[in-house]
């Protein structure tokens, strides 16, 4: 992977001047490459990784296993793209194994998610079945441990 994209993936909050120093590039070159990666879709966007519990978010998140019928033209793509377009859907992947789509849905409460599944998702032509699993507690998100256990402090000076 491009080392610039790798660095941004680890921490997208670095300034372009910091990235330029790390990579021994000019700041202009860093900006040019970032814009190019954004334009070609290699970088889709920049998020903070939020511990929702600590941030006071009271909503719920569910992983929904969806089985769908592939279409003669285009297989799973057309329906998967349709599902992905709903604002409630945070992530949507085609999977190998016992179901087809893994859909991560966010809602204000259980009822909100249940309504989305019952009214929007299940009713789409081609959706055969859904199984909804609500998240209870986060331990790791996007590579970050939540409530990271304190690693023991290093001595301030050592040989």
């Amino acid at each position, binding site marked *: 992977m491009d080392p610039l994209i790798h660095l941004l993936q680890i921490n997208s909050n670095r300034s372009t001047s910091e990235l330029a*120093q*790390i990579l021994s590039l000019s700041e202009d070159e860093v900006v040019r490459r970032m814009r190019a990666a954004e334009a070609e879709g290699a970088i889709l966007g920049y998020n903070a990784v939020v511990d929702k519990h600590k941030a006071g978010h009271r909503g719920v998140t569910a992983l929904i296993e969806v089985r769908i019928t592939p279409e003669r033209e285009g297989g799973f793509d057309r329906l998967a793209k349709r599902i992905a377009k709903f604002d409630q859907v945070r992530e949507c992947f085609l999977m190998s194994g016992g179901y087809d789509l893994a859909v991560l849905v966010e809602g204000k409460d259980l009822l909100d998610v249940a309504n989305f599944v019952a009214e929007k998702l299940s009713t789409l032509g081609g959706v055969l079945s859904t199984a909804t699993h609500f998240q209870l507690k986060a331990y790791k998100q996007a590579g970050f441990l939540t409530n990271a256990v304190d690693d*023991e402090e*290093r001595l*301030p*000076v050592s*040989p």
Partner: protein
Amino acid sequence: MDYSHKLSKQIQDLPRSGIRDFFELVIGRTDVISLGVGEPDKPTPWPIREAAIRSLEKGQTSYTSNLGLESLRVAISGYVENLFHVSYNPKTEILVTVGVSEALDIAFRAVLNPGDEVIYHEPCYVSYAPSIKMAYGVPVIVETREENNFALMAADVEKAITPKTKVIALNFPTNPTGGIMPPEELEKIAALAVKHDLLVFTDEIYCELLYDNRQHKSIVEFPGMKERTILLHGFSKAFAMTGWRLGYACAPAPLLEAMMKVHQYCMLCAPILSQMAGIEALKMGSTAYEDMRQSYEQRRNVIVARLNGMGLHCFNPGGAFYVFPEIRSTGLTSKEFAIGLLEKKSVAVVPGTAFGAAGEGFVRCCYATAPELIVKAMDLMEEFVNEVRP
């Protein structure tokens, strides 16, 4: 009681480590950004820790063979051959130790007679001279200089050789300079060792941490060197396992057997828990440290650019995780610079003199520190330099 008569003259004459003096100024302060450490900033990779936990759960809490677990020695043999292209017999030529520090100590004790001279390079890790003295040897310093990027010059080594010279001790990449050896200079030193029939101890603890696509070359790889080399390596730096205290020595059987005698009487064996963790570390191999190595390289680029940018000349080190900027332009000594920076800006670096007199005019900064903190520390150091510069 007057304890001076109760203590060994030999030990009383050893100086305290300069690192220790400085440590005491810093300890207890929570506001300090420290570039003063000598270890990675990440804990040991999780699979290695997990293997140790599993080993404890299984009740593996006994002594091991004095040499170390055979499965670990077999793994070391494979790892070392892959790194240095030299093959060691795990049954007779590999000894697992409590860190490289122990390996170095028992190597000196195994080979030195009183008065034997050991040539080593300064600035260097703090324990070389004391370890030689504790083995009743005579430390002979050869300075490495910034103009040579802190590589050891064979011509300087040659001048230091006397009929009493027994060992040349090398540590490249070097703590505290980050200096590495150009292979052609290493070859000349190998030739000197052969010509004068000397032993060579090579401490390879930083050999995995090399930058700019460099390939490591050890002195043991040159013709005629395996039979006269004690290769010392360990898990502390690349595998981020400093606290496990796990190292090893590889050497021809007669040398290793002599080291083994000292080891079995003073240490018995390295802790089994650490040895089990070491087996997992070697199973992971470079996957355990390649990401960190890349990250260190990026941090090195930042810190070298910033130090030169503030007018402190700093050569670009090829390995380890230290930079060794020259601070003479501030008009301060190494110690004055380090203490001033700590008192005025709460940034800790280590005076170069902690690593030998040749370190005067320099300070050691460790960049195994979060990039954000490196940038902040450099901002503060720049303010300090501007305030004190005449």
